[in-house]
């Protein structure tokens, strides 16, 4: 395998990785700068003929003032997509960060100490994983609520068992290595072994798996939004725009296509990034 001889990380990842990373970076930048960009208010109906941003037709039809046109309520589609990306990104990264903190920490503990703690946590995660994620999310959303924070928490609840599982498996594997066993035999303190020997190996794989979880979280939020169970309208999200667009497809397809393309153009590259990172990680694990 000639690839194994390539040591430079960048070359292992391939050019596609950097293209994907640039697209993701662009989306993050646009979402962060949405307030500064010259965009009309995403919730403002441009229905007054006297106003400068007037949408002369209530539907689509791109023209200079509104690049993608307006939706059925006369709101600028481009602006809604860009502001909508904020919800997706915030939920995607924040919920996975919480899920990783909880699931990852518990996974390391369970994978390193094993025994009763491990059994107990495994049973608990199995119970969580027995609910299809959307069903669980739908049940929780009903009594938690629909604020952005609630949605983040809900998706974190759905995500942590998966992260627990992969981090636990990685920890068990790393804990079997000779140098860890040697340190144990020499009587090093468990906390020290964890900190100095296990974490440096477990953390990169945990972050990789977390990155693979981000698109899943974004899709989960999108599904909730689509079903009208995420952040309440009129806040734009890709999911609720797709839902609105799909009820109005016979009027103008762009209402559906624009948010669909937006979602796809973020989820695909981030999936690709996760996939590449994982294959590089797998190869490294295979080498040591």
């Amino acid at each position, binding site marked *: 395998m000639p690839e194994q001889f390539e040591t430079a990380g960048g070359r292992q990842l391939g050019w596609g990785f950097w293209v994907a990373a640039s697209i993701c970076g662009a989306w993050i930048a646009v979402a962060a700068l949405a307030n500064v960009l010259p965009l009309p208010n995403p919730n403002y109906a441009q229905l007054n003929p006297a106003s400068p941003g007037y949408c002369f037709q209530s539907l689509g039809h791109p023209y200079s003032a509104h690049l993608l046109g307006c939706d059925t309520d006369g709101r600028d589609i481009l602006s809604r997509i860009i502001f909508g990306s904020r919800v997706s990104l915030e939920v995607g990264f924040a919920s996975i960060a919480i899920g990783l903190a909880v699931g990852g920490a518990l996974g390391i503990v369970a994978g390193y100490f094993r025994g009763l703690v491990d059994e107990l946590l495994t049973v608990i995660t*199995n119970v969580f994983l027995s*609910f*299809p994620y*959307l069903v669980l999310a739908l049940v929780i959303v*009903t009594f938690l609520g629909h604020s952005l924070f609630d949605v983040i928490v809900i998706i974190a609840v759905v995500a942590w068992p998966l992260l627990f599982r992969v981090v636990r498996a990685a920890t068990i594997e790393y804990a079997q290595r000779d140098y860890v066993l040697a340190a144990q035999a020499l009587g090093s303190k468990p906390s020290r072994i964890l900190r100095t020997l296990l974490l440096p190996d477990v953390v990169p794989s945990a972050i990789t798996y977390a990155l693979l979880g981000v*698109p899943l979280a974004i899709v989960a939020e999108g599904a909730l939004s689509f079903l009208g*169970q995420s952040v309440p309208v009129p806040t734009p999200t890709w999911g609720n725009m797709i839902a609105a667009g799909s009820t109005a497809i*016979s009027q103008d397809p762009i209402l559906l296509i624009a948010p669909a393309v937006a979602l796809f153009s973020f989820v695909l590259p981030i999936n690709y990034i996760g996939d590449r990172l994982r294959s590089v990680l797998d190869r490294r694990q295979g080498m040591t």
Partner: protein
Amino acid sequence: MAHLARLRRALEALVTLLLVTLVTYFLTSKLPGNEGAVICGSAPVSCIRHEDMVLYLNHPFFARYLHWISNLLTGNLGNTASPPVPITTLLKQDYPVTLELIIYSQVMAVAVAIPLAMWGALRANGTFDKVTTGLTFASLSLPYFVLGPLLVLLFTISKPFNWFPGVASSLPSIWSSPGTNLDVMFLPSLTLAVGSVAVYQRLLRADMITTLEEDYIVMARAKGLSTSRILFRHALRPSTFTVMTVGGVQIATLITGAVIVEYVFGLNGLGSALIAAVSSKDLPTVQVITVIVAVAFIVLNFTIDQLYAVIDPRVRRARAV
């Protein structure tokens, strides 16, 4: 050893089942819904009176849970909140749609994924392989709620391709008029199938490439067998182990997908029943559907685990884990 391991797995599944009902009950009893409906079971509506409710709520949590679970086990699923209809009636109406959706989609997915994976593995890294692998990877980034509406847009509305009936067409039973039924169910099943094709194709292709390098494949070639016979009779089954293990996880994804697909296409299945119940805060229905879905998942997963032994004769006798 093997029997002990199998017993252990069965026991694990049972414990998980029990905990799942407990968690469902705990979560859903917190719902700000009509809790009084739970105790009445299939009794007439008049049962739900203020006194009953107070009585019910004064019971400790576990007593209420035991009451509920024993009702469930005896087949008494209770009534929906409003209008009060026996939940069993609702389920009997709705489950065939969901079941058909899942089966139809999986038949499609397997029928497409196997040839794609085989042909790709046969000429690994060739043009066909690269294109299909790229396409399936991209399709993994197309969630059901994006793909569904897009298929509706493509195949039911605009002129040249409006081959299929539109959203919310009435769905006749598959037994009375199978043609119309399969026609209406085609796009929903396709929506659900695309993601599965991607998963199956990728796993099957990877395993198939490994299998095709095995000595027994060279030996099958040395027997002079045709390529298709080698692929289907010799290479396919040893290449399905990973797909089988992932199949269980796929089911959870499919149920989630069914919820969305039914919603998108206006089909009256368990998924849309669940969404309706959640939106109207119909507590008893949410509880029952959630438990049924989770139980189905656990049971199917367990079954697939056992099926593994049928596919691989080497584990049929001695199974370590």
